[in-house]
């Protein structure tokens, strides 16, 4: 049975890759209207804390909690997005970074609700809940040839994989729709877009809150995968990491942040054997990348070339 060789550690790295892919797409959506946000770590924390509190204190079922967390982050995105319309470029980046930092200060100081700097522990973990549910009905993972911990990691991975595929598919479809074309027009030239009758306020706020909602979704999934959240998970480093996924991978096509998130999550793990140097290498990689390929690894010409060679091979 090939399943026996499943390594929970690899599955866990895989799960982090998938959560990061969703985060990468979240910043991509906001970027696709030309808005540079560093607030996605903050929106992620809203989703994570909301889901965690709902399930630990109010015994809300996990899927409902995840949905509520995502929606709450989306609403926060509208509330932050509307005043942010006045800002652009680095001003927007720093103001959203500020939003994240203020939110983190609140999470640390509002101890009665958030547990302060310690965070929230023993959040129901998706895999364990599924296993317990199955055990009640006479299912045992051994019947699949799996250890319990293998089954837990595998089910988390598969749920995240489904969520990620749905997310990417939705936004891939969106980018080819009227909304996606409006985003692209706004990104290229805001005034020209406005002159052609595109309601730019509406679309910019929409993109901003979509990004926020998606970050909250990733945060809620994160809370129920690791079963532990703390303010440390949503620092400046996280905000920058999310932005880097999109910029490194390429911010002009949705596959860019997907690739960026996957690559940049796996590299530090793969370099664990030289762990003292791995973030030094990570930093160097970013600089070299911007020097030699500032548009990111994946750009539309590359995708077109792949398509053409694919078609050539099949013809």
């Amino acid at each position, binding site marked *: 049975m090939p399943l026996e060789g499943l390594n929970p550690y690899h599955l866990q790295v895989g799960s982090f890759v998938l959560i990061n892919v969703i985060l990468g797409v979240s910043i991509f959506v906001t970027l696709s209207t030309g808005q540079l946000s560093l607030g996605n770590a903050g929106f992620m924390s809203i989703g994570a804390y909301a889901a965690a509190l709902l399930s630990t204190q109010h015994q809300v079922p996990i899927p409902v909690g995840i949905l509520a967390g995502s929606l709450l982050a989306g609403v926060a995105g509208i509330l932050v997005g509307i005043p942010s319309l006045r800002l652009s470029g*680095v001003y927007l980046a720093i103001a959203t*970074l500020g939003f994240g930092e203020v939110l983190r200060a609140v999470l640390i100081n509002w101890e009665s609700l958030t547990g302060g700097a310690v965070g929230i522990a023993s959040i129901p973990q998706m895999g364990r809940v599924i296993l317990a549910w199955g055990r009640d009905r006479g299912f045992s993972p051994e019947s699949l040839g799996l250890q319990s911990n293998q089954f837990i990691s595998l089910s988390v991975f598969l749920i995240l994989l489904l969520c990620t595929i749905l997310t990417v598919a939705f936004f891939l479809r969106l980018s080819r729709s009227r909304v996606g074309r409006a985003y692209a027009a706004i990104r290229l030239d805001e005034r020209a877009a406005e002159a052609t009758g595109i309601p730019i306020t509406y679309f910019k706020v929409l993109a901003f809150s979509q990004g926020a909602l998606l970050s909250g979704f990733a945060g809620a999934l994160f809370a129920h995968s690791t079963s532990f959240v703390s303010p440390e998970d949503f620092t*400046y480093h996280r905000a920058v990491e999310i932005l880097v996924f999109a910029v490194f991978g390429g911010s002009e096509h949705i596959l860019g942040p997907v690739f960026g998130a996957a690559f940049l999550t796996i590299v530090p793990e793969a370099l664990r054997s030289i762990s003292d140097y791995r973030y030094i290498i990570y*930093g160097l990689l970013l600089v070299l990348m*911007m*020097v030699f390929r500032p548009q990111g690894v994946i750009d539309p010409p590359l995708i077109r070339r792949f398509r053409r060679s694919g078609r050539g091979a099949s013809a």
Partner: protein
Amino acid sequence: MFLEQLVNGITLGSIYAIVALGYTLVFGVLDIINMAHGEIFMFGAFVGLLIVSKTGAPLPLAFLGAVVATAAMGLLLERLALRPLRDRPGASHLASLISTIGVSILLENVAHKLFGAGNHLFETPFADIRFKIGPVTVYLVQAVILLISLLLMAGLALWLSRSRAGKALRATAENLETAGLLGVDTNRMITATVVIASAMGGVAGVLVGMAFNYINNQIGLSMGLKGLAIIIFGGMGSVYGAMAGGLILGLSETFVVAYGSSGYRDAIAFVAIIVVLLIKPQGLFGQAPAETGR
């Protein structure tokens, strides 16, 4: 009590101002945010610390060492991470942001490797000397910090407004291409700006060591974030805005901690900028961006 807090606030604020100046100079000339500035500043602090603690050299030598080291880092930053991007047509403004973020991650982790993650005690030989001016107790360290910051700010303001090089730098900040056409060696001015900004970061690093008595490899980040908040608050690229913004932040942090809650201290900077940005998006001292004609 009030007056002593005032002195504390001004001391802290003048350090913030020096950190913010490093950001604002580079932004004024290059229109980019140098995310590595905080880490260069942190290296300045460590070089100063090593000179004082390992060789027992006097404080001025620590400043000199920190300035030389950070100036060299600024030169490398400009040559290796900024200029190659500038020479590429079509590179987005995100590219330089990410590139300097890369340098900051690199430096933070090199510092972690070299100095570890813990706090390092920064001992100033005259740390305990204090004197009374009327009812107010002032530490000599505070007076020295204030003096150095004021000298540095005055020197910079004078250099920018009076000297030939300062004029060239302002011209480059105004318009890179036009300055180039008028015979300013813009590449040289940019290099000079990054080097000067980094050296100021070095001085600020030693000042922070003196003020807080300890340093670690995270101070680059925390001070860097505040520096960023200040330049937004004061107006991007505005030298006087950075100075005023630094003082205002230092004072408000000190008073909030003294009379309110210390938990939100690090959030003050960002609450302030969010409010300012919503009321006056170009910052307190910033000029409204000229409408580009089409």
